[in-house]
């Protein structure tokens, strides 16, 4: 039977991660904008939430591979189908890559990857300062790309909900 909605685990993961990823983008943008006490406070949240997103993203990838999603509407133009599929590949790639790059860059920068006071994650790269520089640059750049992609995703979801009214929005929100 063809499903009309995403499986329950997929929906729970989607909405949990939506909240976490939006929070992360705001925490990241907020922390580099300030030198007040908010800076260390936001930085302290950024690391554990990032690792949580990495774990959830890997679980979600497993759920995605084992649960068939509902098909896109048959009358969706080919270009929109391609945009939908392509953007979802990119969203998955960024959900996994962003925390990994963050973890890798902190390792290369010689920083302790502190999840919370007393709990330090092992490094995944050797200490290499120029590599840190490039990874840190990539982390910032990809964060903007991620934000734009999420805007497009949100815009497309609302387009399905309000303009096409084709059940795509409900397959995740319903």
């Amino acid at each position, binding site marked *: 039977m063809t499903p009309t909605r995403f499986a329950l685990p997929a929906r729970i993961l989607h909405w949990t991660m939506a909240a976490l990823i939006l929070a992360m*983008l*705001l925490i990241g*943008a*907020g922390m*580099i*904008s*300030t*030198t*007040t*006490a*908010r*800076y*260390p406070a936001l*930085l302290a949240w950024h690391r554990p939430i990032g690792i949580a997103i990495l774990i959830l993203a890997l679980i979600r990838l497993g759920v995605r591979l084992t649960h068939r999603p509902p098909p896109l509407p048959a009358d969706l133009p080919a270009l929109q189908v391609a945009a939908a599929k392509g953007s979802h590949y990119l969203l998955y790639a960024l959900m996994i890559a962003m925390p990994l790059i963050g973890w890798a860059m902190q390792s290369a*920068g*010689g*920083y*302790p990857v*502190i999840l919370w*006071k*007393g709990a*330090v*994650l*092992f490094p995944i790269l050797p*200490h*290499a*300062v*120029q590599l*840190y*520089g*490039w990874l*840190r*640059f990539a982390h910032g750049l990809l964060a903007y790309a991620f*934000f734009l992609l999420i*805007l497009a995703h*949100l*815009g497309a979801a*609302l*387009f399905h909900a*309000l*303009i096409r009214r084709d059940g795509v929005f409900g397959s995740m929100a319903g």
Partner: protein
Amino acid sequence: MPSSIPLRFGLIAGVLAAVVAIFAWVGGFLTPARISGGGIANVMQAANGKVYPGFRRAHAKGLCVSGSFEANGAGTSVSRAALFPSGIVPVIGRFSTGGGDPMSADGRPVFHALGLRFALPHGEEWRMAIDHTPVFIVSNAADFMALQQASVPDPATHKPDPARVKAFAATHPETAAFLAYMKTAPLPSSFANGTYYSINAFRFVTADGQSRAVRWQFEPEAPFAALDPATLDKQPRDFLFDDLLARIRQGPLKWHMVVIVANPGDRTDNATVRWTGPHRRIDVGTLVLDRAATEAQGDCRDYNYDPTILPKGVELSDDPLPALRSAAYSASFRRRAIEGPHPDAVTTAQAKGDVQ
């Protein structure tokens, strides 16, 4: 739900615009006066007169040291930090002089500073950035920014206009007091005989949750000797760094870490204010530095001595400066990292055979 298609498109556009607006507001794009770490790095670059690629935007000239911290156990009475139980912890550090020019001469009345990285069990770290002055020149980010702006060289003369710094000091008595202190207080004749102060107040927390405001200082075993201000500018360019290399070859250099516990009424939120009068002092152990190497040869340059990297048992206080320092150091670190390390003054001088 609106029935007309244009209205529904308008609703979508409104939702997206609201998300962008929230992001822009949180990210400070709508509040240009907000001070970021990058903004501090920018003003320091301007005050330096140019960018020295690959070097720290402040305390650009440095030397690597390493050794250990031998804790005597006394610190456990005030903090559960893994540094304090009796035992030995490996340390790397970096001595530096204030200023953004990595090739500057040492004979200037500037901050002597020490960055330390204590490698504690289970991957925990304690990093410090400590200075030879007991207090700082300003107490908050806005004042730091304003003072740096006042120090930016005049485009015509390529020199800072002393009147602008004077004008700042005139409205900031704590800065005036600091400048007077730097002018009159004897400068240590060596990195080895200076006392290095935490500058900022932190909080120590014991295993049973008692929290106390503290500052700390590293007091040298080497007896203090002062530089003669009259001969300061006649000293060789790298004399402080060469002196440290020579001294460490003779034997390890030692400092006692002394924790100063705040009295009721001591200011914890203002690093320009000294804690005067009798205080509870706890000697918690000895910093032993037994190796030194230039930045290119040692292992200290590529760490960021961010004073907010603290182990369990040590917390930030209401002093606003550590957050400012952390954000600014981080901006400096990411810039110099991507530029890549460049040869430091002492390595270059050694390669030329300028020193023994």
